């Protein structure tokens, strides 16, 4: 499962609607954010390994409305959507083990 991208226009389709079928994890990031850059390869690895979730990345410089709507005021901000609802989120860089544990706890 590879990492997907979404912006303001296709967020609802790729995240909210898609999460009705399968949980969707959203990674809000920006290229000026060091912790985001450090998290990126970890998230990519998790995306490769887990087929039971979709992982979508949203660049907060390009998509300004959705981060605003979901109260994203710190990045990296990783949110988990299940059945159209925001289930849980975490902020900051995490290890692969921690992310997998977080997924298992919530999904």
């Amino acid at each position, binding site marked *: 499962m590879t990492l997907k991208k979404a912006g303001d226009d296709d967020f609802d389709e790729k995240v909210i609607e898609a999460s009705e079928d399968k949980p969707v994890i959203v990674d809000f990031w920006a290229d000026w954010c*060091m912790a985001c850059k*450090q998290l990126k390869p970890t998230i990519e690895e998790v995306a490769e390994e887990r087929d039971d979730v979709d992982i979508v990345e949203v660049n907060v410089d390009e998509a300004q409305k959705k981060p605003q709507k979901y*109260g994203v*005021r*710190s*990045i990296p901000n990783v949110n988990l959507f299940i059945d159209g609802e925001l289930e849980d989120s975490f902020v*900051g*860089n995490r*290890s692969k083990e921690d992310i997998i544990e977080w997924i298992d706890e919530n999904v």
Partner: protein
Amino acid sequence: MKDLVVIGAGPAGYTAALYAKRYDLDVLLIGKELGGLCSEAYIVENWPGTKEIEGQKLMDNMKKQIEDLGVEVLQKEVRKIDKNGNFEISTDEETFEAISVILALGADKRRLNIEGEEGLVGKGVSYCATCDGPLYRGKEVAVIGGADSGLKAAMLLSEHADKVHVFEATDELNAEKIMVERCKENDKVDLNRGMAPKKFVGDEALEKIVFDNGEEAEVDGAFVEIGSVPNESIEEIGGVEINRDEDGFIKVSEDLSTNIDGVFAAGDVTTGSNKMRQVVTSAAEGAIAASSAYNYVGQEKA
């Protein structure tokens, strides 16, 4: 088996690894956050010889320098250290054996520990203006803390936010005069003394700050800049507690040795350099610790 494992990827760790490698020690550097606190510094103007440089860039330069010499920099968190003759340093995935260790663990940002703070971290409450500042374009924000780091954060935030309110709890701004002047001349920044925050209020995100004196401030973001505390992720090695002072700083001698043979410490986490917490002092401590580790390894191998 390594001669030395350096734990921490800030100026102290990088400099320790640099000196160790040049002493021909087989050295490995393991750090949780590449660049540490320094990489959160927007601009560093007091690294000697360099008029100004982004904290992140300075750290990238240090990392590249040692990697070019053949030092491996592993971005992982060290979970524990055991001692079985030599030291066994463990991350989640592997365990490394080494004759000596340098703890360059750095510091973490101090929290206010007030009501509403924990629940709003990442939702308006932040400890890093360089990290989150750009997310507040056109908004109104507060900086808690009127010392150097607070005023620097305020100046940085004014490049993004429309309004920045600095709230200092005491009656004085304990900052360099030049920083106070820059803030006073900045139309977007106002300085407020005698304002100690009591609680953060907000449902899904921060809405306002309530102060001890009853006043309130409606802001979209609050950046807490009240100093840092030494990292305490490693408290003991092989069952022996690492001696720290009452504020949590690792006690070091002049040669940067700790109470445990073969274990040295450097940087913000130590009691060294008169506790002057700067990139330049951390780097110096890294060099001294490496030199001490080199002598120790030489003796152990003799």
